[in-house]
């Protein structure tokens, strides 16, 4: 083989490998859409479950997941973005900031079920929040924090340091430079990171298992201290715990969860590409 043939062979192999990545996604989405679409109708989306969840809709699970995602956002965004601003703009390289970075790195690697147990111990039992939307949201927020902090910090660091210098040279304090120049420039990246974090929170089962999720609750939560159904846990329940479960309902539930997560993803991606095109540096 001469070197051109070697190159061609290399390209072919790499293309095949790239396709291997695409195949499972297409299959998963394809199967779920094909088998779940039959179950999707207005009643499925806005009705309570009936007959031991074998009929009716999944409305409380949809609402529960939306509430949990919202709660996660409210708790995780201020802390995550604030922490990122501190790390990117203020923190010097000391043992403290090194410890913080190490902690963030390790938090990102903790299995989600451990977060669930942590939430059970801290929020549900120790802080006496009970199994509640509040406890579940806080647990998901803790799990989401490393994603938000590291992507937001990266977005802030990507803003050229010259802008900080110019702002300072024009009589701006460090905070004014961040507030008026650096933060607005980093915002699209921060939003993307936040959405990716929330995306993960919305789809997780283990962290809500012990902290908020109800097996079956045929009404909407009335307060932050109520339990709620949630899509990922509901999917787990109807797939493994309920005998005689119609397959369309399982696939329909999976489809709704997938659509929810995909739509957040699409929003995140479009925000990023929209602002990338408008960026002036």
């Amino acid at each position: 083989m001469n070197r051109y043939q070697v190159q061609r062979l290399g390209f072919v192999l790499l293309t095949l490998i790239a396709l291997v990545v695409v195949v499972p996604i297409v299959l998963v989405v394809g199967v779920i859409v094909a088998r779940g679409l039959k179950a999707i109708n207005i009643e499925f989306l806005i009705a309570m479950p009936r007959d031991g969840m074998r009929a009716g809709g999944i409305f409380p699970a949809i609402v529960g997941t939306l509430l949990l995602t919202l709660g996660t956002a409210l708790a995780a965004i201020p802390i995550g973005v604030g922490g990122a601003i501190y790390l990117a703009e203020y923190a010097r390289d000391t043992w403290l900031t090194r410890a913080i970075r190490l902690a963030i790195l390790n938090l990102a690697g903790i299995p989600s079920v451990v977060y669930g147990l942590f939430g059970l111990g801290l929020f549900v039992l120790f802080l006496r929040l009970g199994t509640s939307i509040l406890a579940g949201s806080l647990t998901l927020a803790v799990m989401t924090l490393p994603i938000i902090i590291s992507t937001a910090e990266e977005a802030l660091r990507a803003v050229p340091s010259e802008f900080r210098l110019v702002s300072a040279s024009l009589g701006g304090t460090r905070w004014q430079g961040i507030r008026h120049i650096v933060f607005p420039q980093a915002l699209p990246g921060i939003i993307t990171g936040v959405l990716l974090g929330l995306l993960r929170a919305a789809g997780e089962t283990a962290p809500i298992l012990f902290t908020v999720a109800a097996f079956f609750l045929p009404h909407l939560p009335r307060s932050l201290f109520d339990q709620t159904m949630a899509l990922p846990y509901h999917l787990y329940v109807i797939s493994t715990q309920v005998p005689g479960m119609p397959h369309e309902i399982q696939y329909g539930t999976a489809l709704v969860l997938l659509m929810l997560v995909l739509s957040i993803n699409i929003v995140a991606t479009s925000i990023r590409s929209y602002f990338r095109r408008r960026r002036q540096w």
Partner: protein
Amino acid sequence: MVSNDESPIIRIENVSYAYGDKWALRNVSLDVQRNAITVFLGPASGGKTTLLRLINRLNDLVDGTRMMGRILFNGQDIYAPGVDVPTLRRRIGMVFALPLPLPGTIRENITYGPRLAGIKDKTRLAELTERSLRQAALWDEVKDRLDAPASSLSGGQQQRLCIARSLALEPEVLLLDEPTSGLDPISTAKVEHSLFELKSQYTIIIVPHSIQQAARVADYAAFFLMGELIEYRVGTELFTAPRDRRTEDYVTGRFG
């Protein structure tokens, strides 16, 4: 503190400065005269930019540095505790080597500093915008598109915008660090021309991007080599009759 026009506006006293273990300035002393153009010249890494950035404390943003000596502005030590650094930087403006417009429009670039300083009045901001753009010889080219993105200007226009942006704060001193290094000859001439216009109202310190430019604009000239101030004199004298051999070699182009 009251100062008459004879006293130096900036006095640099025995300043040494190091980045980590590397000394960028060694025991530099010089007085900068009011309403004149002072030129800091010399080969690269001579300490010119560092000294410029010490004068308005921009090097505060750099970690791991050491400084000895004093810098007085109108007789007051700018590194004394309790000095309000943003206010100092408003009075001593800085223009960088590359045009660095902030994101946003031409108008937003000009009014950024004044707005941070608390000026909210629209008429006043419009006044400042027009006056500073005129001073930087840019007004006629941009007066019809003040709300266009600053990035839509050419490089030469952007650099004059950056000068105008500093002038909008009505500083007493303007520091320019190779302000024409990225510009074509015509834009360079425009910038130099505006410097001549400005020196009646401002004190200007410039790191020129060539010896020729230094000779064209200098009222006073300081020659730096490896962090040391070799010679500091009236510009025409330094260029025509340098006292130090090293200065002579540099201004006659034997090294550079």
